[in-house]
């Protein structure tokens, strides 16, 4: 049932269903938004389009985390940092696009720099007026950070809880750093007031729909890529590392290389998710680095179910939809619900919703119990 080449990753039943539902939903929303007049009951508002786009970005981020957590057993509590870094790279491009339309009308400097009495653009802001350069940075910055961090961590065999805690420290340190005005990323307020992307106004419905479609494409691409990776020899080795790292090492595999590789890929995917997220919500600020965000992300994956990829996507969309509904109807109950979700999922649903559905289906097909999922997955590391 594993896929060893790209075509099977694209064409097997799971992939077809997933991609079908994804593009079907996006197309319907896009058409209902663009073609149906606003008075009609069938019209989908631009708000909904952006909301859906946001969910897809979260789904991509959850997918990235699933790749390292579900398949490699690395519980990163700092994936929000890669997401935010990708977002900042995109935000810098969008800032440069404002040009002299800012409040202070400075042709070169973003508003917050004028406000801080800065004379010229810091060196690390150069090049971000080019879309291509910015897109390279979206992948490069989180990728390099993950590579360096992972190289240090995996080489010295920091694993398990220790790794989780230092990834959390990483995102916390970055959050504190980005809150500083001196760093040149807008401090507390972050980057905002974006005007347009590639010459298209961010206020236009068509731009929003295009961003939604771009997010869907990115998610689909990442999904296919991840399925392909997990089907290759490399992916199989990564899973071996997850299940019994010492054993894999004794068999001659350089486990740290595999972990580093998958960690970096995952960080790049998270960065891309951040880059797509920023133009759709219109702001990026240091709050995205907060450890809470990264942990919340873990629960999306846990709710959906680990090591299935589509489970992470389902979890991200469901939890965030729940968040939107809850915070609208009874905001004070949301944290109770989220907290309860953490507890319930870990205690009662270790395999997430997907695992629950699978075991229900299995019970229907063959009543006698087989080796339970729980035991199979929690072989001691």
């Amino acid at each position: 049932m594993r896929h060893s080449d790209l075509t099977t990753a694209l064409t097997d039943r799971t992939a077809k269903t997933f991609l079908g539902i994804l593009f079907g939903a996006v197309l319907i929303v896009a058409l209902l938004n663009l073609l149906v007049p606003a008075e009609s009951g069938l019209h989908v508002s631009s708000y909904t389009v952006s909301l859906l786009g946001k969910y897809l970005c979260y789904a991509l981020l959850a997918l990235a985390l699933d790749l390292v957590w579900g398949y490699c057993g690395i519980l990163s509590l700092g994936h929000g940092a890669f997401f935010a870094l990708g977002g900042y790279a995109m935000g810098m491009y969008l800032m440069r696009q404002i040009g002299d339309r800012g409040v202070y009308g400075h042709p070169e400097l973003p508003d917050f720099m004028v406000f801080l009495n800065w004379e010229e653009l810091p060196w690390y802001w150069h090049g971000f007026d080019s879309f291509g350069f910015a897109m390279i940075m979206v992948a490069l910055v989180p990728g390099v950070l993950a590579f360096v961090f992972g190289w240090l961590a995996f080489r010295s065999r920091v694993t398990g809880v220790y790794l989780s805690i230092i990834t959390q420290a990483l995102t916390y340190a970055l959050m504190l750093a980005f809150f500083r005005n001196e760093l040149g990323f807008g401090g507390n307020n972050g980057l905002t007031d974006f005007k347009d992307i590639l010459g298209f106004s961010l206020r236009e419905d068509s731009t929003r729909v295009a961003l939604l479609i771009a997010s869907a494409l990115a998610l689909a691409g990442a999904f296919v890529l991840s399925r392909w990776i997990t089907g290759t020899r490399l992916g199989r080795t990564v899973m071996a590392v997850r299940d019994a790292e010492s054993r894999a090492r004794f068999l001659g595999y350089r486990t740290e290389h595999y972990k580093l590789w998958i960690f970096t890929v995952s960080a790049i995917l998270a960065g891309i998710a951040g880059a797509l997220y920023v133009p759709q919500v219109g702001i990026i600020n240091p709050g995205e680095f907060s450890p809470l965000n990264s942990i919340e992300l873990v629960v999306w994956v846990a709710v959906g179910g680990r090591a299935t990829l589509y489970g992470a996507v389902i979890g991200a969309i469901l939890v965030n939809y729940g968040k939107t509904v809850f915070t609208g109807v009874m905001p004070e109950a949301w944290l109770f619900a989220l907290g309860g979700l953490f507890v319930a999922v870990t205690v009662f649903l270790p395999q997430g919703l997907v695992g629950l559905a699978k075991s229900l289906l299995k019970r229907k097909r063959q009543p006698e119990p087989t080796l339970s999922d729980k035991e199979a997955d929690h072989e001691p590391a």
Partner: protein
Amino acid sequence: MPRVLLLIFILLGVAGTAVAQPAAEPAGDAGQSTPSSEGEPRPPEAAITPEVSKEDALRASLAQFKSRDFDVKAEAIEEIARSGHERGEALLQALLDRELLHDLAGDRIVLGEQADGGWALRDPISEEDVGSAEARAARPVIINNRLRQQIRDLKSVTALANPNPLNRREAAQRLVGNTDLVVLDALRARQAEEANPLVKGVIDTALNIAVLRDPASQLNERLNAIDAVAGSLEPAVRNVLRDRLAQSDAAAERNAAERALKKIDLRTERYETADTIFFGLSLGSVLLLAAIGLAITFGVMGVINMAHGELIMLGAYTTFVVQQIFPDGHEWSLLIALPAAFLVSAIVGIIIERCVIRFLYGRPLETLLATFGVSLILQQAVRLIFSPLNRTVVTPDWMSGALQINPIFSLTYNRLYIIVFALIVFFALQLVLKKTRLGLQVRAVSQNRGTARAMGIRSERVNALTFGLGSGIAGIAGVALAQLTNVGPNLGQSYIIDSFMVVVFGGVGNLWGTLTAAFSLGIANKIIEPMAGAVLAKIMVLVFIILFIQRKPRGLFPQRGRAAEE
């Protein structure tokens, strides 16, 4: 535990009396009875006249306040201070507080308090009720800044005779740099009979400064004075030395002043280092308190408790609630708050263990997620019950103020107590783990669960109790933190990452490692802070720990042997 508490409070009590004693109270009877105050320059009859005529003299002086002339009032103040009457001090204070009134109707000077839109009047000496006056029928005796300074100086002069050496030193310190002749006379008189070397030192400094300020003094007198004050940390000394360096005609004096200034700079630097270390230690003990409960649950049991910060928060809120229940008991309510916070947090901890964690043993990452969920629930619950706003916990009097070691170095009591308290908690916990049956069982279970069970230890019960112990200590940490920071729903969150850093840095399963890590991180933070700012210091410490973990993945003091294999 109670014995430990008792010890703390005995310690606190001793230090507390030293500060809390109001300066005015003992000063009154000192002026009346002790021969020691005789050194003050005063009219000879003051010491020998009977009490009655003393009172008449005082009344006569008071009457002078009817005048509008500030010079006349200054004279009256002087007379009152020298009268040696027991009410003198209180009357001067009343003058400062604008409670000494000129009753226009009776044309007399009285004490008065505002009451019902008018004044309630009392006799200035007997303090008997002498009727009332309309708001406009009496007005406070007006004084200006010069008179205020004069009163303060005179109060200090009076306090020089206080039987408590701490008060005497404080009074002398207030007079350093003062060149008023009356003050100097008083200081000289005091210098002759002062037995306490600390107080004497301050008085010497004050007099030496006066010599240096005196244009008529001889060169060798001044050189001696410079030698004597070299190394003193009083700002007034530094100022006078700078002036001498700039103004003196004699090269010898300039050299001496320069040498003395260098010596002062050196000492200042040394004390500033001591100050940094003290702040570092106090931050370290806060970290220790926050982390030590975590060290038990994380280190001994291998359980990641992300709700640890919220258990600290519960302790802080318990302090708040106890204070609400006993609104008049700020001085002693901590005695109730400590055990109460321990119980509240311990019970919540045991509930968490029984309902959530026990299903997740051996799955540390899942424990982490589940307890994080619990932390969200606790936070939100507190937010709903107590509102999202910060609550204020009143700090008892014996905890405010500072122990003034010298003019630039003082130890604030709340920080001092936190350090002592953190160490007491640490050693008490060590005792529990090393000497009690529960401690033995905890260590057995943490070393090898299977064998411990085979030996008849009920590991389930031990787990619950250990978790309760760790949580209870978090509650106690909350009581301590409530004295330092705001009590709000986010209190716990701000400590959880730091606490984890401390435990991981020190090495899991090793309480001494936690102690070392807490203090070294605290001091490191405070050393970097002045150079780089608070936020950058924190970032640098975090990055340092991240890099450190790469070098030594198991912390400063790694666990060895079978337990380390997991």
